[in-house]
């Protein structure tokens, strides 16, 4: 295929412990380390491997976010993507709005495959890929742990609750990556230098004709109630006794 589009979301790094603002108005993210959503990074790695096998020409990475999302796009370019598109957005987008924007870009770029993470680790919605597939009226294969391409067909192994499900989908299609699809490569310094020369196209969000105003009304954010720390026991006898006291062991 000529082209694969990979969608990258800029999120708070997965190693950072976030806090809810004391007034419940949001999650404090100012000054925190930001990264490519880890599931999206896996999606990009898969696209690069497909290109390395000679099965794709160009890898285009797309992000919707603030100007600073160029940092994550630069990382994606350093990993090996050929070019990038940033759709500028200052506010939080609902997955439906993100999918509508991606749909506009997919129509414009006409890729043979769209890869993205199964969910973003900030809002944990797990919706955008499925919504894009619906709007595009193309197949979806979510939670992929293996992806094989044979001409116009992709065979995808999916991680489902019952085990592993194998689907065959006609291309073009949308595939969302699960954790075990691959292990993303580390970026090397020369690649970072090379990536500085690769193009990032910047699009104003209004230019795509999509209404991006949130539809759901956010009422408040809360910190989840903590589980109280329990008691330490010293011996197995005490452990079994404590379980019997609680009535959870016969």
């Amino acid at each position, binding site marked *: 295929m000529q082209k694969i589009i990979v969608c990258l979301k800029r999120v708070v790094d997965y190693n950072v412990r976030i806090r809810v603002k004391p007034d419940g108005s949001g999650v404090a993210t100012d000054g925190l380390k930001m990264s490519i959503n880890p599931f999206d990074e896996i999606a990009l790695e898969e696209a690069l491997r497909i290109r390395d096998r000679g099965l794709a020409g160009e890898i285009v990475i797309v992000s919707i976010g603030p100007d600073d999302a160029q940092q994550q796009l630069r990382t994606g370019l350093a990993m090996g993507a050929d070019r990038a598109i940033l759709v500028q957005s200052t506010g939080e987008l609902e*997955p439906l709005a993100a999918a509508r924007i991606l749909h506009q870009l997919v129509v414009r770029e006409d890729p043979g495959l769209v890869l993205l993470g199964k969910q973003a680790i900030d809002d*944990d919605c797990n919706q955008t890929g499925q919504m894009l597939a619906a709007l595009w009226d193309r197949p979806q294969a979510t939670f992929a742990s293996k992806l094989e391409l044979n001409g116009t067909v992709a065979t995808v192994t999916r991680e489902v609750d019952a085990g592993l*499900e194998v689907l065959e989908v006609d291309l073009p299609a949308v595939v969302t990556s699960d954790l075990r699809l691959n292990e993303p490569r580390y970026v090397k310094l020369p690649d970072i230098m090379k990536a500085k020369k690769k193009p990032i196209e910047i699009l104003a969000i209004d230019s795509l004709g999509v209404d991006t105003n949130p*539809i*759901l009304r*956010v009422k408040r*954010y809360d910190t989840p109630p903590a589980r109280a*720390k*329990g008691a330490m026991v010293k011996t197995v006898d005490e452990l079994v006794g404590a379980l019997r006291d609680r009535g959870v062991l016969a």
Partner: protein
Amino acid sequence: MSRILVIAEHDGKRLNQSTARCVACAIAIEPAGAEIVIFGSHPGAIAAEAAVLQGVRGVLTVTNPANAPALAAVLAPQIAGLAKDYDVILAPSTTFGKDLLPRVAALLGVPQVSDIMAVTGPRTFQRPIYAGNALVTVEVPDSIKIVATVRGASFKPVGGADAAAVRAVELPVSVPAHTRFVELRTDKTDRPDLQTARVVVSGGRGVGSADNFALLYKFADRLGAAVGASRAAVDAGFVPNDMQVGQTGKIIAPELYIAFGISGAIQHLTGIKDAGTIVAVNKDGEAPIFEVADIGLVGDLFQVIPEIEKLLR
């Protein structure tokens, strides 16, 4: 009155318990209850199971050979077709519902609320974000349908009731051929299902190998327990992916959860925090799992498990 449609999850033979949990959420939204729709090639027996759930006002069956494997691309247009008669569409937040419902929402042109944990008003829901480190409450405006997935661990399955009526519906929707089911690979065991078991025995990196997991299986069988694992144990290849407990695996709420050799990464703790009693056994007394465990024991699981077995009646 809100008219609610719950999308049933099943394996072709039996109704998945996630459906009864979804109905519990539906009742929290609308005390008058909900209807359930079952897609399949032979939905009769599953419909009979669904009909006797408390709060179920009626069961719809959509019979079509194409509906035998639950493919999102095949089911979504059918559900979107049914949706005009309903105000609320619910599906379980399992891999089935997570795959399917966003496709439905996009066809209907409405946002989806993922992973409802609590119903705080007729159109207001609490859901987890940042791997459960924060909770957000969102309201769905009156002008649109509510399309939402339900986090099973947050709702107890409804009980039984008198059978509601079952009605077959014909849906004049063309079904796409671009997506084809090939196979489902599943390790059949006689152990209880991880998501519904009363007791879960779980192992982490500390178990050390796939072979060593035999010790956990044997122990679980003594207790009649299901067996789970941490992401580290799955990534290390000790056990298959469907045993993973945590934010990116299964979120469970057993009465008793016993973690052996699991350090307790945040994403794992998110998957177990609704458990009744959490027991942790780990060699490392500093392991974060002890922060959430009700009962903790610093020790070597290979010594502790046989000792517990000796004390079991």
